[in-house]
């Protein structure tokens, strides 16, 4: 029994998490070939997917490429657009308009050469924002330009980029591709029950129309209900609602006024009295939603606030309300089951962390799923340690946005109350008051957010950093060259890069070259 091989994996749930995971596993195991490890996915024909989750991280390019999906096919079938970061509007103050960009491209990787100390000393020019000192991308995004040209290869950018995508269409694309190209078996059925073996591992899932389904390993992608790991195996949930206060979202899909309306080149995130509104541009519509805390605003008020943000266009549109379970499971992997997606953890979607952590979990599972059942405990402990770290760091990073805000509404005051800031975040914030952000603050290889992300948010939010020992920063000449380069690039790329729609039209027509 103990030396049995793992030859089959059953994924339960067909949302973004389920299909990304099944496709990744099947690709990694070469499941389309006879004799390879089998990957099966069961999805309920009755229970809808969450239907949101439209902002991604640049890791999605590597993921799609790995799965063998052509970039032009993906863009076309998912109404997808290029995302070049996030613009945070009004996060600093309640009454003084201000905004900043969290971008994906910097002229110098700060872990190699950190420009921030020189920017702080005014070497990039007085009154120059950090983002516009170290990157051309903010200006490009503001102009609604694409991060690449038609002559670039598929998945290659002049500037680093991610995507905005239609979640439902994305799951459909993955579903087709996974079955037709990667050898995933698909079963449409409702899981009614999960039967456990004596040792507490999963023995089988019982379905309404496909009988009893058994596998050597199970992946729980059933969304917030966490049917396998949470409900059946009884792994507990650790809420983080004391740290991150939002608990609901209300969303509206807004068609463009005309088919050629410009498309935003980054996610917009605009602070509101009890949370914030995301605004994501696809090719055919915007996806807009208010993420809020129901302790500070009623559901009706929240919906009104969202409608006000959208304007008269919202009058005829329907709003959808979602409850969010914010927190993570005590374990993500337990015996012969791992949870990936909403079933594992969720924090408010402020930095589009959910999908990229799904990609990361699927990658790690594909690599670490042991050949023999006897090695499961080892893989379990590695995986749990890794993802506990990643989720805690994600929580810290989200909290950073709130901790630095000077907004005055009760929600915002509560959100930055010191006793609710994780100690790990308090520690780094303390050191960053007099020291630059350092690569040593991000010593872990699987750090979810890189050093540059922290810098964009810190300096964008107006964090006061008073560097001690200015004599330590002797490379002003080199820094000046980089700052100059950014200005050149900003100028040059404005001339060269096409508008999002213009590029998308060309891609639909000609596609990208693989070369």
């Amino acid at each position: 029994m103990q030396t049995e091989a793992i030859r089959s994996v059953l994924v339960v749930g067909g949302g973004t998490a389920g299909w990304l995971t099944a496709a990744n596993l099947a690709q990694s195991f070469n499941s389309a070939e006879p004799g390879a490890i089998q990957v099966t996915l069961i999805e309920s024909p009755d229970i809808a997917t969450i239907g949101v989750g439209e902002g991604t991280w640049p890791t999605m390019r590597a993921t799609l490429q790995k799965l063998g999906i052509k970039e032009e096919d993906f863009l076309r079938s998912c109404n997808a657009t290029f995302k070049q970061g996030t613009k945070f509007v009004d996060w600093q103050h309640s009454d003084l308009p201000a905004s900043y960009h969290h971008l994906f491209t910097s002229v110098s990787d700060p872990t190699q050469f950190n420009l921030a100390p020189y920017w702080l000393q005014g070497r990039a020019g007085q009154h120059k924002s950090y983002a516009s000192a170290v990157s051309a991308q903010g200006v490009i995004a503001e102009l609604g330009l694409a991060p690449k040209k038609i002559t670039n290869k598929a998945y290659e950018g002049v500037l680093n980029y991610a995507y905005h995508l239609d979640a439902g269409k994305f799951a459909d694309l993955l579903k087709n591709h996974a079955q037709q190209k990667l050898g995933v078996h698909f079963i449409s059925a409702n899981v009614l029950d999960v039967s456990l073996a004596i040792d507490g591992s999963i023995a089988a899932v019982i379905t309404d129309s496909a009988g009893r389904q058994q596998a050597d390993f199970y992946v729980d992608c059933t969304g917030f209900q966490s049917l396998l790991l949470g409900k059946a195996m009884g792994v507990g949930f650790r809420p983080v609602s004391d740290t991150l206060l939002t608990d609901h979202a209300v969303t509206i899909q807004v068609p463009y006024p005309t088919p050629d309306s410009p498309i935003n080149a980054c996610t917009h995130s605009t602070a509101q009295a009890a949370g914030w509104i995301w605004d994501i541009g696809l090719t055919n519509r915007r996806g807009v939603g208010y993420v809020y805390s129901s302790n500070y605003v009623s559901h009706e008020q929240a919906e009104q606030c969202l409608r006000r943000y959208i304007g008269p266009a919202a009058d005829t549109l329907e709003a959808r309300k979602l409850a969010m379970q914010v927190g993570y499971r005590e374990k993500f992997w337990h015996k012969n089951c791992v949870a990936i997606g909403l079933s594992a953890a969720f924090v408010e979607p402020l930095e589009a962390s959910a999908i990229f952590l799904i990609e990361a979990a699927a990658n790690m599972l594909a690599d670490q799923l042991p050949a023999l059942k006897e090695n499961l405990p080892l893989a379990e402990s590695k995986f749990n340690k890794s993802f506990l770290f990643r989720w805690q760091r994600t929580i810290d990073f989200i909290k950073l946005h709130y901790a630095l805000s000077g907004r005055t509404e009760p929600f915002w005051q509560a959100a930055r109350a010191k006793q609710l800031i994780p100690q790990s975040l308090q520690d780094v914030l303390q050191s960053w008051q007099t020291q630059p952000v350092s690569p040593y603050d991000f010593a872990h290889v699987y750090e979810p957010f890189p050093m540059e992300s922290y810098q964009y948010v810190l300096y964008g939010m107006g964090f006061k950093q008073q560097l001690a020992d200015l004599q330590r920063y002797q490379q002003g000449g080199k820094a000046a060259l980089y700052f100059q380069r950014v200005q050149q690039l900003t100028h040059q790329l404005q001339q060269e890069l096409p508008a999002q729609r213009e590029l998308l039209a060309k891609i639909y027509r000609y596609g990208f070259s693989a070369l």
Partner: protein
Amino acid sequence: MTQRIALDSQQHQHYKLQEDKLFSHTKLAHILPLEVNEFAAAAAYFPIVFVKDSNTGQFRACVMTGIKPGQNLYWHQAGWQAGYTPQALRNYPLLAVQPDTTSGDYVIVVDTQSSLFNPQSGHSLFAAGQATEYLQQRAGAAIAQAKSVLLTQQFIQLLLELELLVARTLTLTPQGAEAYDLTGLYLIDEQRLAELTDQQWLSLRQNNSLLAVHAVLMSMNQVSALIQRSVL
């Protein structure tokens, strides 16, 4: 900037076409389009390279006529300096296009910016509402070119499928000047060619593409001739 409109027997009844044996419109072009049926003839005079069309991102085949943008080393006031002239040059300012690919009909368009197309001097295009023999012959050549463009696209598609194209940067050091890089050029990768499986070789042969591949490789000898020409 070229500006193309379709030739029209009413609108252009008084227009004429001049011929320019110097091909002055290419004076500043360092690459010029070439089609696959011309490779063998062109290979003895120019390097044949592949570049991406900046407007569509699609690959096209070209001859290199200069080693930096704005330079055509084959243009000379005494006459074209090579034993072969690409058909696109000969057909200029005419071009055949297929507005509707399903019907397959071609329409002849003209670059109205060209002074070769004018109401004053040259060969008449229309007489009594009908295309002249001269125009018919020029239009026939333009249509032949348009057909060979399709063959070239198929050839390039095959090269891409077999992963035979590689990006190459030519680092050039003109005498007494600083070295610079000419980027955006794609060549046939000889090493990759050597690694093709028998079946892949067969697909090249069956598509009548071996000769074209060979011509491209042979044409690489002309790179040094081009550089030589640039220092003269």
